[in-house]
């Protein structure tokens, strides 16, 4: 009886070790002595990096929680004009890369931009200069990141506020609790694990963000890592800095785990919610509509409109058949990665369900660390072991068979997809895990008594029940890969371009107008699955 159980444990550990190869490559740098760059960094920059990163995380926490929770609450609790559309439209900012939104808002709000220039025609230049906030600043970066990352909180909180929680919220109403108490005393504590999970995703992405903070001139850990590499050409210090970043992340994950501890009691039943939600009409309805419209407008409509304007500006020269290739490249890369990530996440989460031991739990947590590591660092950490493997195989083949195999994996899409998986597995794993938790263990037990094997249970019972979680996992990774830049840039094969590479090349050359079209196409390509899937989720929900 023991052997088959160990099989799951061993498979989990093996999978985790394999997937986290890049992490071990980074850790290996820890044993190199700190050099003069390291000391220079500690003396001059590290405190600033840490302080800025902490402020950024704090700000983004407040931003994403405010936007994500208020909208999730309104959408899950009330009925009002526009809710049907806002329900999925609130997810749209997910399709907007953070650095792109930063560019568009800078274009609009900077000192030289149309908004400030217009204001200067109304008021004195001095008044405007004095009162208009500088967009390219730490607060600016917080706003930008919050606008594109709040959907994580929204998505997870919305689900957590409905279903079983809804019944308890009703109960609190019968006990005389007004909206304020219902939210803070009942709904929020109950949804806490989901909210913390969403927040963790947002914060990990914040830590990994390079484009926005770099453009806004906010020195954070990630820009520091980058600068150490490009400025000093020092891989060792770069890796060591990245590991410090991982300490931040580990703390985040520890908090998340702690918050999840009680989650099991919370998701007792899985009662679907058929009771109608109260209708907000008149002023209240309009207010709810506006509250939900704000994040959609600021996180999606306004930047998308700016991108559209830029695209039109460059339309004659901008669009050609090459874009079809770019779209196809981006799309199939994202789809493959999302599919593989969802499969792996399902296997890992299921293995943990079968064999919930400290060692499997630890394996699963380590696998999720990749999400907070900046893409550039991941790319390098993937490049090194792959090239080593290729070269080792090559030299062995040469000496034994006198055949050169050259580079087998380096510079292929395999290496790229592997890097994506390392970076984004966290998202699919979180989603699938929480989905799996909703399925009662008695379901497994009853299936086993009917003679089903573990595999059979997975395929026949869990897969159909997990449908929705898997769809969400797929969607989130798909959109992330679509937006992903640094890893793609470094690891891609010859003559292989994606939309994000094109957008970046234009933007980094300060040709924002030319970056408009590829950026808009990223958003549009990401939009299709966002809308399709949120419809699918919606249907299943009713």
């Amino acid at each position: 009886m023991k052997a088959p159980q160990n099989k799951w444990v061993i498979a989990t550990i093996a999978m985790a070790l394999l997937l986290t190869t890049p992490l071990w490559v980074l850790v290996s740098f820890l044993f190199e002595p700190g050099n003069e760059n390291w000391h220079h960094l500690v003396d001059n920059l590290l405190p600033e990096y840490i302080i800025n990163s902490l402020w950024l995380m704090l700000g983004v926490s407040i931003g994403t929680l405010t936007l994500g929770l208020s909208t999730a609450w309104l959408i899950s609790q009330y009925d009002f004009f526009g809710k049907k559309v806002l329900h999925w439209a609130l997810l749209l900012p997910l399709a907007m890369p953070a650095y792109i939104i930063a560019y568009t808002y800078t274009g609009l709000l900077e000192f030289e931009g149309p908004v400030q220039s217009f204001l200067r025609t109304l008021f004195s230049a001095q008044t405007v200069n004095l009162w208009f906030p500088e967009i390219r600043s730490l607060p600016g970066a917080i706003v930008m990141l919050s606008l594109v990352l709040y959907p994580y909180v929204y998505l997870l909180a919305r689900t957590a506020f409905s279903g079983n929680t809804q019944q308890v919220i009703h109960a609190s109403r019968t006990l005389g609790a007004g909206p304020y108490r219902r939210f803070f005393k009942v709904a929020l504590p109950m949804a806490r694990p989901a909210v913390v999970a969403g927040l963790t995703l947002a914060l990990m992405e914040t830590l990994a963000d390079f484009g926005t903070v770099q453009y806004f001139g906010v020195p954070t850990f990630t820009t520091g890592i980058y600068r150490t590499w490009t400025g000093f050409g020092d891989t060792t210090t770069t890796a060591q800095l990245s590991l410090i970043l991982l300490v931040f992340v580990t703390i985040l994950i520890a908090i998340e785990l702690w918050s999840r501890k009680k989650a099991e009691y919370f998701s007792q039943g899985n009662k679907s919610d058929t009771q109608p939600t109260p209708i907000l009409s008149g002023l209240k309805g309009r207010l709810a509509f506006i509250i939900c419209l704000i994040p959609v407008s600021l996180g999606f409509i306004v930047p998308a409109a700016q991108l559209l304007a830029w695209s039109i500006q460059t339309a004659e020269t901008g669009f050609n058949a090459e874009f079809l290739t770019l779209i196809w490249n981006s799309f199939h890369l994202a789809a493959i990665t999302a599919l593989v990530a969802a499969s792996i996440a399902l296997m890992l989460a299921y293995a943990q369900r079968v064999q919930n031991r400290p060692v499997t739990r630890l394996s699963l947590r380590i696998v999720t660390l990749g999400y907070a590591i900046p893409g550039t660092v991941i790319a390098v950490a993937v490049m090194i072991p792959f090239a080593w493997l290729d070269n080792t195989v090559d030299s062995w083949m040469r000496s034994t068979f006198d055949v050169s195999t050259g580079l087998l994996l380096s510079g292929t899409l395999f290496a790229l997809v592997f890097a994506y998986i390392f970076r984004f597995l966290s998202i699919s794993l979180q989603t699938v895990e929480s989905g799996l938790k909703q399925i009662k263990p008695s379901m497994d037990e009853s299936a086993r008594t009917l003679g089903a094997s573990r595999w059979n249970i997975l395929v026949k019972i869990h897969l159909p029940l997990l449908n929705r979680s898997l769809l969400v996992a797929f969607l989130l990774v798909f959109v992330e890969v679509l937006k992903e830049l640094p890893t793609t840039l470094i690891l891609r094969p010859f003559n292989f371009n994606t939309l994000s590479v094109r957008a970046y090349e234009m933007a980094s050359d300060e040709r924002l107008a030319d970056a408009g079209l590829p950026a808009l196409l990223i958003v549009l390509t990401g939009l299709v699955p966002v809308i399709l899937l949120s419809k699918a989720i919606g249907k299943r929900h009713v």
Partner: protein
Amino acid sequence: MKHLWIGLMTVIFSLPVNASAEEVNVYSARKEQLIKSILDRFEKQSGIKVNLITGKADALLKRIESEGANTPADVLITTDAGRLHRAKTAGVLQAAITPDIEQIVPSNLQDPEHYWIGLTTRSRIIVYAKDRVQASELSTYEALSEPKWKKRLCIRSSNNIYNQSLVASMIVHQGEKATEAWAEGLVKNFARKPKGGDRDQIKAVAAGQCDIAVVNTYYLAQMLNGKDQEQRKAAEKVAVFWPNQKDRGAHINISGIAITKAAKNKDNALELIRFLLTTEAQTWYAEVNNEYPVIKEAPLSKTLKSWGEFHSDALNLNALGKHNSEAVRIMDRAGWR
């Protein structure tokens, strides 16, 4: 399920590096838009297929390093001399530039040990607001740290390689100590925290947030020739000042090319370099990207011509790479973020 996986794997592996007869593999830190069409022209003329990956210089360098002897890369193109020097130091290049190529290009724009060669040059210049600053108030890079420019200067972040190179050249000419004092003075003159790119600095000058800025020539030239009305208007509000004309000359940098140690298509690579130094290719560069050609035969773009002749720093650009780390540390200590 099995079919799915087989299909998946086929797609993933479907893009291996296929070795055709005549080809050259290019790792380029120059953006695809700024190089693709000239490479296409080379492909048509020579019949040699060009495979291209673009990316950031350091990443490409790292990739060549870790791919080792099996790297597919034949040539590395960068947009600054410092990175070429770094690649040379890392031992991934070979001293393959032949004399027939070297004689075309001025000697300060190439590596004396034949590792790399410049393709185009650009200068880092001072621009000033026509309505608020007189050209006579400006003189040298050094003078930018004078207190009279307090809160009047815009310059981008020290993360930027062009700033790093400029400071590296200061180190060579003035020594470390003087450079650090200069950097500290410069930081005091910043009108705002360094942010955005070179175009943003020009826009800030045009909008009145600062009076002078330090930028690369081609950014200003592109703004003047771009489709964006606002940018053109902004660029027209500023004027060009060539610094240090009375002494060493304006700081310049190159975009350059080198052949990797493991190059399997060395001859094709040399062929490519020769092509990139033809009048045809150099003219294209000058015209499309408003950069200065490295050969005299190629004409300047209209905009560059209008800025007139200038005297450039004759420092061998290897020095920029050598002093890059020092430059970064100095800027860090001076609080230049």
